[in-house]
C-alpha cells in the first residue's frame, strides 16, 4: 500500500490543528468528508478555497467532490459571516405566523438581502429551514440564541442594539 504524504497545514493558525485532529479521529476516512467540513466551518466560520483544498488533499478525495459537497449542502457557507448573525426561521409554522414579514423588515432595516452581510461586516442576515422550535413560531436566532414569538418591532429594536454596540 502506498503511503500518501499528508499536505502541510495551510498556516500556523491553531485552528488547522483542530481540523487535522478531527480527520485523524476518523482515520482520514474519505467518508468523513462532511464531518471534517463541519469542523472547518465551526472553527473558521465558513469554508474557503484553502480549507476545501486542504481537506480534499488530506482525505484524498477529488477536489470536485469536496467542492460539490460544500456547495450542495445549505449548512455550509462559502462566505465569511458578519460579527453578528441574525437567522430567521423560514419553516412552515414560522411562515404561517408571518416570518416573511420579519424577513422583509430585517432586509429593509439592514439594506441587504438574506444570505448577505452588511458592508461594514457587522451583521449577516440568514434564513433557516426550521430549527425545530415550531411551537414558538415565528422564531429568530440571535447569534444562535433562540427567541420565539418574534414581533416586527422587537426585531428592529434588537437589530438597533447590535448596530449601536
Amino acid at each position, binding site marked *: 500500500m502506498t503511503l500518501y504524504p499528508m499536505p502541510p497545514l495551510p498556516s500556523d493558525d491553531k485552528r488547522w490543528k483542530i481540523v487535522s485532529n478531527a480527520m485523524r479521529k476518523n482515520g482520514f*476516512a474519505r467518508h468523513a468528508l462532511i464531518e471534517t467540513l463541519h469542523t472547518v466551518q465551526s472553527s473558521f466560520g465558513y469554508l474557503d478555497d484553502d480549507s476545501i483544498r486542504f481537506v480534499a488533499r488530506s482525505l484524498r478525495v477529488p477536489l470536485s467532490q469536496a467542492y460539490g*459537497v460544500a456547495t450542495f449542502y*445549505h*449548512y455550509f457557507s462559502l462566505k465569511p459571516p458578519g460579527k453578528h448573525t441574525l437567522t430567521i426561521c423560514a*419553516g412552515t*409554522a414560522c411562515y404561517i405566523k408571518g416570518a416573511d414579514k420579519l424577513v422583509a423588515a430585517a432586509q429593509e432595516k439592514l439594506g441587504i438581502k438574506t444570505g448577505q452581510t452588511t458592508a461594514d461586516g457587522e451583521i449577516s442576515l440568514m434564513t433557516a*429551514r426550521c430549527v425545530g422550535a415550531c*411551537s*414558538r413560531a415565528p422564531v429568530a436566532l440571535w447569534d444562535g440564541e433562540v427567541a*420565539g414569538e418574534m414581533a416586527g418591532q422587537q426585531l428592529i429594536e434588537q437589530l438597533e442594539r447590535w448596530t449601536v454596540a
Partner: protein
Amino acid sequence: MNIEELEQIAESVRQENAKYDYEVNVCMDLACSSQGAGQLREELVKAVAASGKKVLVRRTSCMGPCSAGPLVRVDPADLLYHHVKAGNAQAIADSLGNAPVPELQCDLNEHFDQQMRVVLENAGHIDPEKIDDYIARDGYKALVKALTEMTPGDVIQTLTESELRGRGGGGYPTGLKWGTVAKAGGDLKYVVCNGDEGDPGAFMDRSVMEGDPHRVIEGMAIAAYAVGATRGFIYVRAEYPVAVSRLTAGLRDARRRGLLGNNICNTPFCFDVEIRLGAGAFVCGEETALIASIEGRRGTPKPRPPYPAVHGLWGKPTLINNVETFANIAPILRRGGEWFANMGAGRSKGTKVFALTGKIANTGLVEVPMGITLRQIIESIGGGVPGGHTFKAVQTGGPSGGCIPNEHLDLQVTYESLVQAGSMMGSGGMIVMDDSSCMVNVARFFIEFCMTESCGKCIPCRAGTAQMYTLLTRICEGQGTMQDLELLQDLCATVKETSLCGLGMTAPNPVLSTLRYFRNEYIEHIANKRCPAGVCAVEAAVEVMA
C-alpha cells in the same frame, strides 16, 4: 449486564429519589429554555436549598404543551405549573407541603386526557443525560430480554405481530423490512437511524433524540441483533446541536454500562453506533440520498431497486428506520406485539406523535392513538383556533403532504385515510391554518421549498418544481389565467409520475390538495384579481387602484 444488574441500578435510583420528599421537574426543552427555563431552574435550586426541604430539582425534556411554557411539574402531587418565571421560584419552593400556587396552576386536563403516551412515556419524567434515570423506567430491559431470551427470529416475529409501520411517513411494515435485511446475505450489515428531520414545521424527532436518547439507542441495538448488524449510524441534522450532544453522551454512557460494544450482556452480540451530521438537505431524508450523505458524498438519490435492505451503505445490507420507529421498539418487546396491535385503527396500529403548530391555542407535542379524528386533535387537544379566527385547513406531511379542510376533520388519522384525503401521515408535522392564510400562497411556499431542495438529479423534479413555482407566483400576483391552472394540474401529474425519488413524487401534493379543496381561492386570484385572505400582493394593487 443482565436483568438483575438492571434491577439493581433501577433500585438504587429509586432509593436515591426516595431521599427526597418532593420532585420539581423543570422542562428544559428548546421552547421552554428560550423563555428562560434555565434561569428559572437556577432560582429554583437556590430557593429550595434555602427552604431546607428535601427537594430534587430535575431537568427534563419536553412535557408537551410548549405554548404554556416554561412548565414545571411538582411531584408527587402531580401539579403542573405554566408560564413560570424565575421570579416564581420562591413561591413554588414555599408551596411544597402547603397549598399550590394558584396563579400558576393550569387546566390542561382536556389536553392530556385524550393522549396516549408510548414514545413519549418518559418525557418530562427523566433527566435525558442520565442513563440510570432511563434504566429506572424499564430502560434497556427490552434489549437484555431480546439478547438473553429471544432469537433474532422471535424479535422480528414480535414486531410483525405488533403491525408497527414506519413512522417516517411511508408506513412500510417494520417487521417486513427487518425480515428482508435479516435474510440478506453477508456478514457485515448496518443499522441506520434517520434523524434528518427535514420537514419544516416538525420537531418530534428532535424532541425524542434530545429527551430520551437511550430509547433510540436501545431500539437500534435490538434492530441490530434482529437483522445481524454490527455497526450503526445515527444521521442527525446539524441544526439540532442539543440532540447531537445528548446522543453523543448517551452513546458514551451506554458503552460504559456495557450496553453497546463487544459481547453485550455476555452474548456474542457486538454492536456500536456512530453519529453522522447532516448538513441541511431535505432530500437526505430519502433512504438512498441519506446513504450517499453518510458515505460523504452529495445527497442525491439512486433508483430503487436495489433497495438499501439488500444493497445499502457501502453496498452492504442496511436497515434504515426513522427515530420514532426505533423509539417504539423497546415498549413493543417489553409488552408484546399484541399489546401494540390492540391500539389504533384499521391497518395503522399504535400511537403517533404530532408536532401541533400554527394557528392553534395549545402548540406543542402530542401523542395520540391512531384512529383518533383530526377534530379531536385540533379542537380538544389543541384547544382550537385562537383570536376569534376560523379554522381553514390543517397541513400534514410537510412539503410532501397536503391541506385538509374543515369538512374532512372527522377523518380518522390512519396512513390510508390521510392519503385518500390527498395528504399523508408524513413524519408528524401538523400545522393549523386559519382564515388569514391564503392557500395559493401556502402552495407556493411548499413548491418554493421543494424547488430549492430538489437535488437536481432528475429533470421532472428539477425543472417541474421550478415551472410550478413560476405558475403559482403568476397566480399569486394576479397575472394568472385559467389556462395556467390547467397547465399547473398537468405539470403536477407529470412530476408525480416521473420523478426519481419521494421528494419529486410527493412535491405536487400541496398544490393538488389545495386545488382540490380550495379551487375557488385560485379562481378568485385569477378571475377577480383578489386574494381572499389578504396575503398576496395582488390585493394591495387593487386597493391602491380603488
